[in-house]
């Protein structure tokens, strides 16, 4: 019993840290321009497909295609910001919410058209197998994805706190008008944040492609879960998103284990509703 519980906790940390990376990408966009990107999950799907095609066409392992995924998604993010999102930023709030639904439906179905709705898998990734640590089984690709996610999250954290550009992003997040008056090019910061947020989810996609099924609808659930994580962590809070990501991983895995696997995502949503009921601003907001 204790062994199984330990195994479940390990599993939840492994998935929770990847959730955290996905959510940090989302919270950066949300925090800086107050835009909820419903296509975030589909960006993840595109990251996974990028890794898949790098592997299939160029024999490039996901471990080495991480920079490719980051670059592709960065460009996609900047493009979508420039040509679509920035056009509705001054419009009514409802249009800002709806527009990214359009992007999401467009991207998911473009993937269906280009690559069929089939499930795919990277068959022989460089990292595979499991380590046995006592009674706990540790999947090597999952472990690598988790460690990678934590490292990337930490890098983002230091980028925001230590570099000039990072501080400019945080300044815009705090007060857009004041940042503009201080000579920060807020429009540039917007597209940069959208690009970085998308690149992060692209990296998460590369990590996930090492062990997760890849198909056009894979992003939907990840997208919804990352909204809950972001809102749970608090508006635009990187630390909050990280903690909430781990927390949601725990709820999902332990809930599925103790309660009913069919309800594990329902529990995630329930925890979200209860939390915002008690703290409408989220944990760290």
């Amino acid at each position, binding site marked *: 019993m204790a062994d199984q519980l330990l195994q479940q906790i390990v599993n939840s940390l492994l998935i929770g840290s990847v959730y955290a990376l996905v959510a940090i990408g989302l919270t950066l966009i*949300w925090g800086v321009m*107050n835009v*909820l990107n419903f296509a975030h999950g589909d960006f993840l799907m595109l990251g996974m497909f990028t890794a898949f095609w790098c592997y299939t066409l160029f024999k490039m392992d996901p471990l080495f295609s991480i920079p490719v995924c980051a670059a592709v998604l960065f460009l996609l993010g900047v493009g979508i910001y420039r040509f*679509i999102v920035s*056009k*509705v930023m001054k*419009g*009514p*709030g*409802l*249009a*800002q*919410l*709806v*527009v990214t*639904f*359009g*992007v*999401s*439906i*467009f*991207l*998911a*179905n*473009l*993937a*269906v*058209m280009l690559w069929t*709705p089939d499930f795919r898998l990277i068959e022989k990734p460089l990292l595979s197998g499991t380590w046995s640590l006592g009674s706990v089984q540790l999947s090597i690709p999952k472990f690598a994805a988790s460690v990678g996610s934590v490292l990337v999250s930490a890098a983002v954290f230091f980028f925001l706190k230590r570099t000039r550009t990072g501080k400019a992003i945080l300044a815009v997040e705090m007060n857009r008008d004041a940042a503009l008056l201080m000579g920060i090019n807020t429009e540039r910061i917007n597209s940069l944040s959208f690009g970085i947020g998308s690149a992060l989810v692209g990296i998460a996609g590369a990590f996930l492609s090492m062990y997760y099924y890849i198909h*056009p609808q894979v992003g*939907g659930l990840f997208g*919804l879960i990352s*909204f*809950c994580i972001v*809102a749970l962590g608090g508006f635009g809070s990187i630390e909050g998103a990280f903690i909430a990501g781990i927390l949601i991983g725990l709820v999902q895995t332990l809930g599925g284990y103790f309660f*009913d696997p*069919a*309800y594990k*995502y*329902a529990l995630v*949503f*329930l925890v*979200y*509703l*209860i939390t*915002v*009921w008690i703290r*409408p601003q989220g944990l760290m907001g």
Partner: protein
Amino acid sequence: MGVRTFTKRQVSVSAAVLVLLALYPLAVRGSFPMHLMIMVFLFAMLGVSWNIMGGYAGMFSFGQAAFFGIGAYTSSFLLTAYHVNPWIGLLAGGVVAALAAALIGIPCSNLRGHYFAIASIAFAEIVRIHFNNWKLIGAAEGLTIPMQDESLRNFMFHSSKAPYYYIMLGFLILSLGVCSWVTTSRMGFYLRAIKEGHDVAKVLGIDVVRYRMAAIMISAFLTAMAGTFYAQYILYLDPESVLILPISVQIVLVAMLGGAGSVMGPVIGAAILLPISEVTRVKLGFKGSGLDMIIYGTLIMLISVYQPQGVWGFLQKIGRKKR
């Protein structure tokens, strides 16, 4: 805005439109044009119901599918399990949905903007997951409505779609009546005040939570009525056909395209959007290529960028210029 007084012109235009709509079933042949108009009315009603909470009170719900599904499931379950007449099931579905709305309204009563939107999605997803696993109501396999004799009493018609058409038109007019009553009543002014400034409204002594709850519950009741209609019309339902996020998004889109916060807006929105989405689905969707949905997604982006205030506002602007 202000208390609604109808001009002579408005009355005559509405009367003319109603006469045309009443004659429509006599003028068209085949079932697709009838189906199309029924879907337009259905989504117009769903959009009008969304508008009561979204357009006027500023609670952007992306979880209306939950109320729609609860309505459809309540009447269908009562009918299959206890032979309860669907018209009674219709009212029961409305009541259950309103109670569910109250339940979700409590934790969401202070949420704003994006937080409310996410909470509404979370709620609808919980309902969908639960219904997918709930054996009593058929779980993922869903419910088939038992065949009965064709009659208004049984809410079932086999030989023609015309009765469904008139019933749905009646439902739509009813929901327009409710919406128009809400907006011109004291409650309508309170809701708009809450939308414009949550805290200001509170300071002015408006019971924000109470009025927001009332708006959600009225909206849920009407949405559930549409759900029962849908079940009686399609005669089959499962969680993936009534409880999914795309339905909620389509409801928001109908209201936004027409004009959120105007009584007639969603009707215009449905009249534009539904023919496009139904026709592309029928013409392009059969191969499962995704092309119909790509067009739909593009349409959403175009509407958000170029017509975010809705067609209704655009038409009014033109109307004013003419005069």
